[in-house]
Structure formats: structure tokens, C-alpha cells
């Protein structure tokens, strides 16, 4: 019994201690691969804010598959800012929970995307299967690792990049693209729910010949887990991924954190913020910083989702809704 009592007492004292610290805090709900980026960025912003206003700010992070994270915000996770993998997920928060206006993407420069990325291939050292371009992924005997487009933002970019590639081949059509993507997914042995899960599957568990990944995620994996084990292949044609950011209006107005949250996102666009993004292998939109880091980003030709698919709303409806093209090809398998 005394053990229970002491546990209770400990719990009570911890509770009391927890509620005492009430400084200004922000919650940034983000997607999977930004963990390291925001760890650095939050520290830099806290320093900047302290110097500018004298206030101490603590930024809390939550990470997961972008679709899952958007769902949590809709269900009441009180995010001051969302920094997700694609615009559609923030659109869902706007349309399903009405936490921010529908035109949120117009409020910050560059489609509210302070950094961009693209989809590349991570292969095992020496590239034993000779993977150079998208066409190599559908060859028999090539095992491709990608997360599930239903839950992962990165996976949706992967899917759309493959589709866009097939569409832009000589004689390309929707039917041919569908066929190509179906063949590609027939080569996928495991669908993880988030980008980080897929990276772990490929890198740690050693499954698959090629991982379709965010450029930044691929570089990070190589850096963290061994440049002697993996190589990055940037295909000549890929998609321009724009992971957007936004303040969640209802939450910041309720918590009185609007000024802080807006300053936080704007700081992403400053040279300091851009430099941090570039250091974490996100493509900066600032020209000067971009030039400085130019050699770490291979010069692939990038198409946008607006050019090929007419925006996220259309792409989502046609491809990823229940009964959409992805369901058709994945079930047909």
C-alpha cells in the first residue's frame, strides 16, 4: 500500500510543478521529416525573439504523417501553427474544422511555402540495380519502398511525381500514366504510414532496392546512417514539392498568440531561417541562400502540381479519395 501512496504523492507534486511554468508557448504541428529542421529553427527563433522583445518563448513540436497530423488538429489538437507536407492537408483543416480561412495560402509569400523540396531516389551503395530514372522503378525485380499515399504527404508527392513523369513521356496519356503507377506500386512490398517509417524500413531493416523519399529525408538518412552505405539518385524530371505553413487562426486568437505565431512563420522567410532550411537540405526560396547551397541540390527539371494536376484539390479528388485512382490500382494488385 505504501508504494501506491508514494506513487500518488509523487504524481500530485509533479502535477503541481507542471502547472506553475506558464511562459509564452507555441505548438507547431508538423509532418515527419521536419524534426531536425524545426529543432534547429526553434532554438534560433527563441534566441531571435528574446533579443527582439525580451520574452522567453518555448516551442513545442508534434510530428507524424501529414494526413494524421491534420486529422489531429481537426479533432482538437491545439496547434498555433501547422507546417505540413502539402496544401491539401491544411485545406482539410480549413474546410472540415473551419479553424482558418480558405484563402490561407495567399497570406504568406510563395504559396505559403518558405522552402521547397523534391522527390529523389535513395539506393544502396554502388546502385546495384542501376536505377537512374523513374522508368527503372517498374522493372521486374526492383523492390520500391514508399509510404502509403493515404496517410503520408510525402507518399502523395511520390505518387504524383511518378504520374507526372509518365505523363510527360512521348505519347504519354492518363491511361499510360495510370498503368505506369500501377506497375510501380506492384513493386512495393511494404506501405508504411509515414515517410520516417519508410526510411527506417529501407535503411534499418534493409528492405527494398530503392526508397522514394523527400530530398531532405534522403540526405539526412545518408548523413545519419552512413555515406558508405547509400547513394542519392536525383531523377532528371521530378515534382516541385511545396510544403506550406500557416497560422491556425481560431487557436491563436483563443490563446492570444497570434503575434508570436505570425512572427515565427515570417522568421522562416528571413535569411537566417532560409539558411537553416538549406542546412537541413530543404531548397530555400531566397535566391542568395539558394546560390550559396546550389551544389548540394542536383539540377533536376521540376514540374509543379498546378501545371500537371491543376492543384491539390483536384489531385486529391481524382487520386487519393476513397475509390480514387490509387484505390483502383492498389486493389487491382
Amino acid at each position, binding site marked *: 500500500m505504501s508504494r501506491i501512496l508514494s506513487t500518488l504523492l509523487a504524481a500530485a507534486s509533479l502535477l503541481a510543478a507542471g502547472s506553475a511554468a506558464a511562459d509564452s508557448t507555441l505548438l507547431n504541428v508538423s509532418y515527419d521529416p521536419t524534426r531536425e529542421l524545426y529543432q534547429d529553427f526553434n532554438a534560433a527563433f527563441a534566441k531571435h525573439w528574446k533579443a527582439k522583445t525580451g520574452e522567453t518563448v518555448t516551442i513545442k513540436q*508534434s*510530428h507524424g504523417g501529414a494526413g494524421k497530423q491534420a486529422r489531429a488538429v481537426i479533432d482538437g489538437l491545439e496547434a498555433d501553427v501547422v507546417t505540413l507536407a502539402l496544401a491539401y492537408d491544411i485545406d482539410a483543416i480549413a474546410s472540415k474544422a473551419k479553424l482558418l480561412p480558405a484563402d490561407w495560402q495567399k497570406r504568406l509569400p510563395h504559396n505559403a511555402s518558405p522552402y521547397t523540396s523534391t522527390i529523389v531516389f535513395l539506393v544502396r551503395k554502388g546502385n546495384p540495380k542501376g536505377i537512374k530514372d523513374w522508368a527503372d522503378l517498374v522493372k521486374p525485380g526492383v523492390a520500391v519502398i514508399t509510404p502509403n499515399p493515404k496517410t503520408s504527404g510525402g507518399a502523395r508527392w511520390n505518387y504524383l511525381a511518378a504520374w507526372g513523369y509518365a505523363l510527360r513521356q512521348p505519347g504519354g496519356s492518363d491511361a499510360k500514366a495510370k498503368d505506369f503507377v500501377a506497375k510501380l506500386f506492384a513493386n512495393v512490398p511494404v506501405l508504411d504510414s509515414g515517410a520516417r517509417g519508410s526510411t527506417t524500413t529501407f535503411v534499418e531493416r534493409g528492405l527494398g532496392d530503392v526508397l522514394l523519399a523527400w530530398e531532405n529525408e534522403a540526405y539526412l538518412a545518408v548523413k545519419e546512417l552512413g555515406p558508405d552505405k547509400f547513394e542519392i539518385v536525383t531523377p532528371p524530371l521530378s515534382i516541385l514539392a511545396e510544403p506550406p505553413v500557416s497560422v491556425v487562426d481560431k487557436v491563436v486568437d483563443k490563446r492570444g498568440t497570434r503575434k508570436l505565431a505570425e512572427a515565427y512563420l515570417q522568421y522562416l522567410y528571413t535569411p537566417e531561417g532560409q539558411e537553416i532550411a538549406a542546412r537541413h537540405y530543404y531548397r530555400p526560396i531566397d535566391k542568395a541562400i539558394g546560390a550559396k547551397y546550389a551544389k548540394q541540390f542536383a539540377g533536376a527539371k521540376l514540374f509543379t502540381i498546378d501545371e500537371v494536376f491543376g492543384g491539390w484539390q483536384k489531385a486529391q479528388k481524382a487520386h487519393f479519395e476513397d475509390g480514387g485512382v490509387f484505390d483502383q490500382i492498389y486493389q487491382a494488385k
Partner: protein
Amino acid sequence: MAATVSLHVPSVGIAVRSAATTEPAWVRRTLIGLALAFLTLFLFVPLATVFYEALKKGVDVYLNALIEPDALSAIKLTLIAAGIAVPANLVFGVAAAWAIAKFEFRGKSLLITLIDLPCAGSPVIAGLIYVLIFGAQGWCGPWLQAHDVKIVFAVPGIVLATIFVTFPFVARELIPLMQAQGSDEEEAAIVLGASGWQTLWRVTLPNVKWGLLYGVILCNARAMGEFGAVSVVSGHIRGMTNTLPLHVEILYNEYAFAAAFAVASILALLALVTLAAKTFVEWHYGHERQAAKQESSA
């Protein structure tokens, strides 16, 4: 009453069994060897791996992983969740077992079924239920938001989910024991003029104290180790709503393997302590059960 319950007392008849064994020695040895190999492969090796991986990069890395603020906050939250869930289920478990074992009433089998419900369903569903009820889009969501009460994606949700999944442990342990003991002693106490409370404190509880402790230990182990249900209601905010098991997952996903195993080793240590406590209690508990058995058969 007691006759309707079958009790599984393990120690009866060991002497008889050895005489009745006719298998040759090599069969017995092979079976024992197989069992041991299986245990080694699936229990001891993973357990040793946890500690090996945790300490691989040195004691400094190990300790730093444990005193890092997010880890401390995860430990704190796990203690809070268990600190609330275990006493809550202790009170509920005793009350339910007492009602079920000592009284006859309508809907008794329904109550027993309900107690088992958390064991029958997947923990993920348990978590989802709370999101559907208390989430912003759920039944109580708008009211809760209007009154600024946070349940899911905050500490109360984690506590609720923990209580739900650990619900059956205490009650399930006590019901068979109390049923075997019957209500003779309670009846005697009442006849001698004891009040209901006095009967509970002086007769019923002392009779089941080891069984109760056993249930509490199991309940605590599950409360601290729960992943699925808690993951759904957590929101994964670092330093705020991550419990130990969730923190392990985060560290692992961030390529901080040594740190992940360091935190996992706390959970493994907890398991070992639980095991030791369980063995100790079982030893006493066996006596309690046997006493109940002898009494009921006498």
C-alpha cells in the same frame, strides 16, 4: 457458492505426475531444451539487446538520454497516468469484485462481460473512442471547447485511455478468489454486529490482500507500458503529452538509437521489478488461494 468455481492450483500433484511420466529421458530433455531455446531466442536475447544497445555508446550517452528534458517529462507523464489509473482501478476493482462475488443481482453477468471488454478490444479502438467522444468534432467536443476543457491531446485523455485499458486487471484477479472464499466470514461478522465498512476493512480486504496486490502490480505494469490507446489520444507533443513508450518510438524514428534503447531500458527494468514483485506476491498468494481452497472443500 464456492463449489461452482473451479480453481486452478498448480502445485497439486507434482509427486504423482513424476511417477506417472513414462516418456524416456531423451524425450523429456528434448522438450525442456526446446522450451529453453525458445525462451532464450524470444525473451532473453531481446532483453539483453535492449541493455546492450542502450549502453553501446557509453554510460554518458545513456544517462544523458534519461535526464534530457523530454525524457524526464515522459517519465513524469507516465508516473502521473499510472498514479491516477492504478488507484482508480483499485477502488473500482475491489468494489466490482465484492459486488460480484458476495451478492446476487440482476445483470451480474453483464457486468462481468463489461469488465472484460477492454481486454477483448484493440487498444487503438479504445483511444479512438475517446477522440470520437471528446475530440473537437466529437459528441462533447463543442461543449468542451466552449468551456475550455481539454481532454484529448492532453493529460486527461492519456489518463482516461490508461484507465480504460487497465480496467480489468484488479477486478479479474479478485473475483475468483473472493468467490472461492465465499461469504461465510462476512456473514459471521455481520451477525456479530459489524457494520458494512468494518466487514470490508477487517474481514474481506485482509483475506484478499495478496491477490489485490498481485492485481495492482499487473495493472501498474500495463499502465506504464501502454502504447496503442495512448498514442491515439496523445497528439505527440514533445515534452507535454508523450509517455515513455511514445518517447521511445520518437527517439527511434530520429535515428537516436542509443537514446531510444536507453529509455526502453527503463521500461525493461520496470518489467524486471514487476516480475520480481510478482514472484514474491505469488508465493504469498498461493498460500491464500490454497487456504481458500481447503476451507471451501472442508
